[in-house]
């Protein structure tokens, strides 16, 4: 009987995830929240189907009734995001909230399964982050002054990064985190938001060569500090964000091409200057010859992705703990292992859905600051997803960044939620523009 339940649950979960991702793409076609409404009903059903089936599997295998509490807590957090947020901000973009909810829920389930302590910590941080995102959304919508203080963001970001160099603690050979009042922060994550805000502020005004130069200069300062801390993944993300935002603001393809050339040259230089870059590169080219040493992480990740097959091994039937750093950098492999490749691919498609939705909002926004902000946030999401999933599957060399909203990590989840809060603020601004235009139209045609 138990076997029947767990086996069938496995298939239904994978199918539900695939439909979820598909509906996410279909929803992009509908411009208004009203038309998306029937989709949201289905998405809610799918989300809770996955949640219930996953916790049934966890209960069957763990036989610990306290797991039920985790399940309820997950449901509450998901509800917080998909129900409370639209209640407070009726003009927000619910599709992005649903996609974020899916990622968060997956994160909770996988983390509870791998490491309960980390799972519950993640849930608490996520709940707090969602509340912070409410605040961020309200503040940024309410006070347009925040769209004009680019220099503040620029300075704040650099000082954060410098602070970590001065008072930061060393983990795994890199200065990445700073501990304040018992909480550990990774300022590089917050610096990312600061950079996006800075770029949006600077480029929403003038887009001449001078402002572009300033943008690149500030980005390089950020990157230099990060490279000094040997955080290569974060600096790559910042660079790509800068490149894409500059391109979108100026509409000049030459910036994109020049930036790509620069990025390529930078990677080659990094290869010659940093020994750990070389090590990662050789591990990427051939992880098999040194399977005991430098190739260990990557090969274990590949085993994890492959051995679950399309439908996954089922929760508690796989062995995600065999992969080092599975909760952070290799969470995709853990999901692929136990939930199956179909689920894992759907999850990445949902990340892509968030990105495309943000780009669509950019296209529809009149307010340039909001549009550039959306692009920056979207690029940050998708490029980070690309780096971590591609790195774990040997598509590109490993960079060691987190999968937004899924990986374990307080700073990562906090910044992701803040970015979603910022995005929602721009969504509301977009709706305002819409109402404005509508009112104007009514006035002209004399319908009003």
């Amino acid at each position: 009987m138990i076997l029947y339940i767990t086996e069938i649950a496995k298939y239904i979960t994978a199918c539900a995830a695939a439909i979820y991702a598909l509906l996410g793409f279909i929803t992009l076609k509908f411009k208004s929240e009203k038309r998306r409404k029937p989709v949201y009903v289905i998405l809610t059903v799918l989300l809770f189907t996955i949640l219930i089936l996953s916790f049934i599997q966890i209960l069957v295998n763990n036989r610990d009734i306290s797991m039920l509490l985790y399940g309820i807590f997950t449901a509450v957090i998901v509800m917080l995001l998909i129900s409370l947020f639209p209640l407070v901000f009726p003009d927000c973009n619910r599709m992005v909230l649903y996609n974020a909810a899916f990622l968060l829920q997956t994160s909770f389930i996988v983390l509870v399964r791998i490491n309960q302590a980390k799972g519950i910590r993640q849930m608490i941080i996520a709940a707090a982050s969602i509340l912070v995102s409410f605040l961020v959304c309200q503040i940024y919508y309410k006070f347009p002054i925040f769209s004009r203080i680019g220099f503040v963001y620029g300075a704040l970001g650099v000082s954060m990064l410098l602070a970590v160099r001065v008072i930061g603690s060393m983990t795994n050979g890199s200065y990445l985190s700073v501990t304040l009042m018992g909480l550990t922060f990774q300022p590089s994550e917050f610096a990312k938001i600061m950079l996006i805000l800075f770029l949006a502020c600077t480029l929403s005004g003038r887009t001449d060569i001078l402002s572009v130069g300033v943008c690149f200069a500030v980005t390089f300062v950020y990157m230099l500090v990060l490279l000094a801390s040997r955080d290569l993944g974060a600096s790559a993300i910042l660079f790509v964000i800068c490149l894409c935002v500059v391109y979108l603001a100026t509409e000049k393809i030459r910036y994109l091409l020049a930036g790509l050339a620069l990025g390529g040259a930078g990677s080659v230089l990094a290869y010659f200057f940093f020994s750990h870059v070389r090590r990662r590169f050789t591990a990427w080219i051939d992880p098999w010859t040194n399977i005991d040493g430098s190739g260990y992480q990557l090969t274990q990740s590949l085993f994890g992705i492959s051995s679950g097959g399309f439908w996954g091994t089922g929760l508690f039937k796989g062995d995600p703990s065999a992969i080092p750093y599975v909760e952070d950098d290799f969470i995709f492999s853990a999901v692929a292992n136990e939930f199956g490749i179909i689920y894992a691919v759907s999850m990445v498609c949902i990340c892509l859905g968030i990105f495309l939705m943000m780009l669509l909002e950019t296209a529809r926004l009149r307010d340039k600051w909001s549009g550039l902000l959306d692009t920056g946030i979207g690029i940050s999401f998708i490029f980070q997803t690309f780096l971590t999933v591609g790195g774990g599957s040997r598509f590109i060399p490993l960079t060691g960044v987190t999968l937004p909203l899924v990986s374990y990590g307080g700073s990562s989840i906090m910044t992701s939620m803040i970015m979603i809060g910022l995005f929602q603020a721009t969504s509301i601004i977009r709706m305002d523009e819409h109402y404005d235009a509508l009112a104007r139209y009514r006035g002209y045609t004399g319908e009003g």
Partner: protein
Amino acid sequence: MSLKCLFRSKKYKEDYYEDDPEQGYDGPDYPGDGYDNGYNGINHSQGYDNSYKEGDPSMYNGPVSYEGIEDIEDDYSYEDDPDYKRRYRRPHKNRGVVLLGCIFSLLMAAMLTYIVYYSYSNRKELISNSYNKRSVQLAKENLRGRIVSSDGYDLAYSEVDEKGEDHRVYPFGNEFAHVVGYNILGGSGIEKISDYYLMRSDASLSTRADAMDKGQKFPGNNVYSTINASLQRLAYYSLGDYDGAVIVSDPKTGRILAMVSKPDFDPNTIADNWKSLSQDKESSVLLNRATGGLYPPGSTFKIVTALEYIREHPAGYNDYKFHCQGSFTKDDTSVKCYHGSVHGNVDFYGSFAQSCNSSFANMGLELDQKKFSSTLDKLLFGHELPTELPSAVSRAEASKGLSVHDRMQLSIGQGKTLVTPLHMNMITMAIANDGLLMKPYLVELVKTSDGHVLENTEPKEYGRLMSQEEADILTEMMTKVVEEGTGSGLKSASYHAAGKTGSAEYMTGKTDSHAWFTGFAPASDPRICVTVIMEKAGSGGRMAVPVAKRIFDEYFRVYNYGD
């Protein structure tokens, strides 16, 4: 300037509804939206006329359709509005948005396709890797499946003892040691090829539920091999005390019916004897000589030399004449016939049937080395063999830079030339199958424990090694070997065999030789190919041919009997 300018004002929405009481807000459009109780989520502070009072019917007239708004939004008709154009001109940023969207979507699509493709197509290799702990997990869940021979014998199965631990049992022990292999310590043979299926259980849910209820492990998938147990045992015992290898295959499908390698070991006790077996460098017991042993091909290589000669002299090969005096000398280097025999006047067929080294050395010097090199390349020399078993790469080199000595040595399969028995068998298979080589395979079927077929190996063509005419000529030549040449031990009433013997000298300056035979029967409609190599046994005609004969005899006895 008042502090108000710091706040974003949200006037339009309220203006709109107040201007148009008939076009009010319809509840469900924006869930949770609080227009009807005085919407104030964002803008209560200032910026619009606050005259609206909650519940005041004069201000707000209840639910009205939202349809009009939808249409307008989708048409974007207000964009035609000149005032709108002037004041809200939007930058042409859609092109950039589309480009970025496409770039990243394509990047993600490429990555996901790669992940799915890579992990699916490499799933078998990845799961068999000894660093993959997944196999340990599977071993806990499933009882490893059986390996069954084509005539229905269990070649390997797992047994659960009283303590509940399972052991792998190989009922035939040494006889199938290399071909069936073992599943511990990295694995080998069919155990390794089909590891993916054997360790998994794809039985139906009800079968697995039954096993679970009984407290047993799930039954693993069973592998049905192409190996014929009776032929394998016959080949094993026919080889006697000699080291070497025997391969029996079906040229029309590529099925391998028997594969023997000696010296051998007992897979049942491999874990205990591992140390002595793996450290034994001298006799390499663990090496499957049939696929991994590199031997000088000796006269069996004359098949290749003859093929090249036919290719270069399509009309004139039959006019070839040579007078053999027991040895052939050119530029101070000479080649002797086997044990100094003198063949006298021989033609092309005669040279081949009598296996005249002198004649072939002479022929070899006439060959165009460039063309010969491409023929060797096409016959898979210097390439991995298209087979699932790990095999060694055969070596035979023809090039313009070769000395006369090397050219003569090459043409009689001595010198630096080395082949694996499987490779020789595959060349024979191609000749027997009108020039077309079928990919050799060992696993016929994989079934779940309740009989559902998971994988059915279809015979696959590898490609054409030679034309049909060339194959026919070679068949005729090999028939003559049996009828009037070195393979006359195979003359038999019930079937007509074709083949080539070889006595390959393996140490320069000594006359000791490995005994080779490779051939097939019946010559007119070949059903099986047999390749025999017996190390240090002497003459191929005397030692290897009788082994092949016993296999042919047994096969056709059973075949005629059963048909």
